[in-house]
């Protein structure tokens, strides 16, 4: 993401910097505006921004028990999702945080944890996403997938597994500064008599949830590295690898493989735009690859199919993965994936676990992000502007059957495993938080 930090225009960095000085509500609104104006775009920046703002919600919003915290978080989450419904990661992060809160609350209160029963619908109320209903019962992701990946780092296996030993330490170390942050910004005094819960319990919960969110943030920042760890397993010497518009994740993945292996990379790109000649796109990536001794061939999207018969693997960076296994990726990927399928080349999707969404699209077209008309047509072309209707899709949905392998930060998975991953990371009562939130008091 090219960020012009010297200028005035807003972007993710500026937003994160502004968080400290602003009131919570103003921060949420400025994030919503940034999402709507597409000044924060792309799954990773959106995920980071969402995690940051939810951390602020937990730390600074007014809540006196678990229920009200859940409501605060899901309200904010719903507004964020509405602001950019095409970025599924926003919803994912919100669900992760909601799940985190539920976990912490049930652990803290021990047996008293009644929060899930209080407002969550009974399992029969929700129509679960297709084909994964039987997976709901598995409470936690276990060793099924970890066995497939030797390189899986222990740190991020699951945020909740490392929570129990922390509570006392964090109670002492993190809550005072958090509290200090809170009081000046609170709209209505820090200690209102309505606090039902035990104050110390609240503090403990707050700091634990904050820690959990920090872990999610860490996870997001480490995803690229962890995915890249699988590179050597996937890419073999002499392979011809096709990469479509490499995202930072994909670049890292290829570069890691390039350290050990000699192979050829076909770089597929969208048609060049004015001033954005292909030479500028991914220039540093190509330089690095050449430095590592990997042959790079640039291919325009149109000329791809001729090469496809020789390609061994197609690597696609996902923007999001839906519950059915369909992948939301840059426009153009679906054609490549289909061609690869026809020619028998393996299609590998790289996606951080946070991009895996429990949602499954009812209407596929609703997931597609439509962009600026001037992406491919110049606005200076008067006759075309007035005479033609121009639609530019930024993303498209690759059908699940075209994809062979999903590589996440947790390892390598097949499509069948996705449902267990989903069950492992999201609580089913949060699956539809953006729908049922309306019914909350």
């Amino acid at each position, binding site marked *: 993401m090219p960020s*012009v*930090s*010297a*200028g*005035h*225009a*807003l972007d993710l960095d*500026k937003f994160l910097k502004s968080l400290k000085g602003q*009131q919570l*509500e*103003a921060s949420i*609104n*400025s994030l919503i*505006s940034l999402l*709507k*104006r*597409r*000044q924060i775009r792309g799954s990773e920046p959106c995920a980071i921004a969402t995690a940051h703002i939810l951390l602020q919600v937990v730390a600074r919003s007014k809540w006196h028990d678990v229920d009200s915290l859940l409501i605060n978080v899901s309200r904010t989450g719903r507004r964020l999702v*509405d*602001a950019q419904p095409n970025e599924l990661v926003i919803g994912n992060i919100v669900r992760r945080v909601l799940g985190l809160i539920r976990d912490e609350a049930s652990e803290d209160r021990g047996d008293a944890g009644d929060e899930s029963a209080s407002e969550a619908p009974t399992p029969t109320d929700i129509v679960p996403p297709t084909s994964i209903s039987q997976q709901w019962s598995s409470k936690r992701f276990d060793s099924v997938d970890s066995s497939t990946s030797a390189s899986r780092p222990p740190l991020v296996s699951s945020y909740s597994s490392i929570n129990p030993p922390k509570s006392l330490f964090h109670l002492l170390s993190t809550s005072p500064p958090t509290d200090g942050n809170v009081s000046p910004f609170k709209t209505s005094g820090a200690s209102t008599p309505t606090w039902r819960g035990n104050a110390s319990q609240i503090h403990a919960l707050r700091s634990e949830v904050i820690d959990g969110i920090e872990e999610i943030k860490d996870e997001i920042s480490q995803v690229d590295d962890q995915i890249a760890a699988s590179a050597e397993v996937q890419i073999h010497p002499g392979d011809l690898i096709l990469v479509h518009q490499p995202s930072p994740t994909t670049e890292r993945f290829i570069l890691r493989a390039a350290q050990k292996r000699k192979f050829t990379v076909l770089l597929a790109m969208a048609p060049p735009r*004015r*001033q954005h000649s292909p030479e500028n796109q991914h220039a540093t990536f190509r330089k690095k690859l050449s430095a590592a001794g990997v042959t790079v061939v640039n291919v325009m999207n149109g000329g791809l199919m001729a090469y496809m018969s020789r390609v061994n693997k197609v690597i696609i960076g996902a923007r999001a993965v839906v519950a059915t296994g369909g992948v939301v990726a840059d426009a153009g990927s679906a054609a490549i994936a289909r061609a690869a399928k026809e020619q028998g080349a393996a299609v590998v999707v790289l996606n951080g676990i946070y991009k895996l969404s429990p949602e499954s699209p009812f209407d596929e077209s609703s997931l597609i992000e*439509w*962009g*600026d*008309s*001037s992406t491919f047509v*110049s*606005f*200076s*072309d*008067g*006759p075309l*502007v*007035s005479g033609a*209707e*121009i*639609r*530019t899709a930024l993303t498209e949905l690759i059908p699940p059957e075209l994809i062979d392998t999903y590589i996440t930060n947790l390892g390598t998975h097949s499509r069948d495993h996705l449902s267990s991953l989903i069950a492992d990371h999201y609580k089913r009562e949060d699956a539809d938080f953006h729908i049922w939130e309306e019914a909350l008091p």
Partner: protein
Amino acid sequence: MSHKGKNSASSAKGKKPAKSNAESKAEDVLQAVVLADSFQDRFKPFTVEKPRCLLPLANTPLIEYTLEFLAMNGVQEVYIYCGAHTNQVEDYIGRSKWASSSKLSPFSVLQFVRVADARSVGDVLRDMDKRSLVDGDFLLVHGDVVSNLILDDALAAHRKRREASAANIMTMILHSGGPDEHRTKTNGITPVFVVDTKTQRCLHYDEMNPLQSDHYLSMDPAIADELSTEFEIRADLIDAQIDICTPEVLALWSESFDYELPRRNFLHGVLKDWELNGKMIYAEIFEDGYAARASNLQMYDSISRDILGRWTFPFIPENNIFLNQTFKKHINNVIIETGASHAHDAKLQNSVIGTDTSIGSGSKIINSIVGTGCKIGSNVTLENSFIWNNTTIGDGTAVSKSILAGNVVIGKGCSIPTGSLLSYGVQISDNISFSTAAVLSTVTSTGKQVAKDTNLLGPDSNAAPFYDPEDDELDDEDPSRLQKSLIYSLANWNLSTSSISTFNSDDESDDDDDSNLLSADPAHSSRSRLSSFASDDSAGKMSFHADAVHGLLDALRADSGDFDSAKLEFMGLRLANNASDAMMRKAVATAFTRRAVELVTPEHGGLDASKAAERAFTACKGASKFVNEVGVGGGEPAQIEFILSLQRALQHYSKGQEQQQAKSATLLPAMLQQLYALDILEEEGILGWWEDARAVDGESMAALKEKCKVLVEWLENADSEDEDDSDDDDSD
């Protein structure tokens, strides 16, 4: 420069060190001045009741786009000047998320600036200078800008230039419009920028319009000689009038107290006087992105189409940028807000439908924008139209390319033709049709209740055709007239030649020998400007006329100079264009008449008629000889023709100057008398003209002729001693 400085010592100079140690510290604050009133009335009749910046563009008030654009670019402090309807704007902003009291506002300061009795943008900016509200670089935008440009690079470039030299005061943000016709280019007035290719310095600015007298642009030769070795002259640029200014710009406004318009006066003037003021203005020309001003109804239409075409991304309804919107994109590029309902057999295409709007069965809505809370009956056809909030349209009504403002009620079976404008609250009974575009309002241009026109609009109506008295005051040649309607059309304009020398078409029709040159027939007058360039040799003749008149006028204005060179030039033109005697005569007559009329006007001394005539013909050495040889050059028939030409030119020209009419009317006898005295015209010629039937064609021609009665009588008596008396009579 004085600096009031909210932020203690952040003067323009104090910023440089702050900038150099860069990003660690908070950025310097970007300020913006929004001119929410542009002192024009091109949105009438709508702006009688509401300010322009609150008119809805794709269901969102215009000013929201402007403020979002500023917020997007990280502007922190905003100063808004409202002008007309200040209270409405302040009220709206006060309730919106932008209000400084609102916690949600991205701006740290949003302040309204009130300027007592400002009459132009210039007045406002001069006042801003006095108050010293801005103390650093600021953006100057209008309240009707729609843009998605990220100005970071332009701002950085501007800052760099400013640090290099304090004379670099301003950077304009322009957008390339391409060589072809483009809907988002302003119609009527074409801005022409001369920009240095290397430094991007703007060297010259001018505006052209199809009504102007010549098709030329004059450029200071110094531009090529001294200022630049390589420059572009661009007439294709879309100018959204987004400027990055330093406070020196405001100071410059103050210095030139008579500048009114930011472009035509200020930019043109500052660039022209570059030697005097030593200031430099730059132009950043964007190829990508979008920037345009809804400066008139045609631009409103174009920008709405651009929004539908997603060119303004991300400012499109689907993104719900603006508070509380819930638009969703459906098939056929129909964008519907939650809460709107339509019958299943309603045909919708490429349209925006606001919330709580209902659309009846069998209705067809194509390329239209419908506001919130509208009730559209069944079998209604809306094409390319804009329906604002809470409007009701009865069954079976057809509306094409029109604007229906808020709370309009249209009965059943009506038909609203292309180009109609129905202002707020207009009601129309059933089965009303208009043959031509209707402009209807419930109030007059001064805001009073109108007397309802039930004959035209049916018994239930409360409105009448809107009539703006200011229209009459506008000069015929003022190009802003072209921008007053929703549909840009040159059909009713006579564009064939220069306006100074084009005679009224009804007079032309009987012009025997050279009517073709003046395009008397409607087919000619309705042709577009382009085709008039491209057409046969009549174009050449027209340009001869325009060029010749101009050349002569310049020579005459020089007053003292030698007329021989002008004569040489004239003859050269004549040969080049193969002009006939009649054409030459006409050109000569027009030039001298113009000069004489000019001399009568107060700006040029307000001479009385006889003096003006004398000066026009005799001030330049050789002028009278020239008239004799070239203009008349012959016997009685030629003299008659020449007088007729004079008469027509005078009649045409004095039209534009109502207050001068009385005075200039007496010019004809004065000129005739002068010519008689100079022995250019003979008694026979004048008397021959007096008898000629063509001299009394039309009311004003007859009136002009009547003025010469005394002169003719005197000639008939041929009594030289009465000369003085008759002269006095004439000039009274």
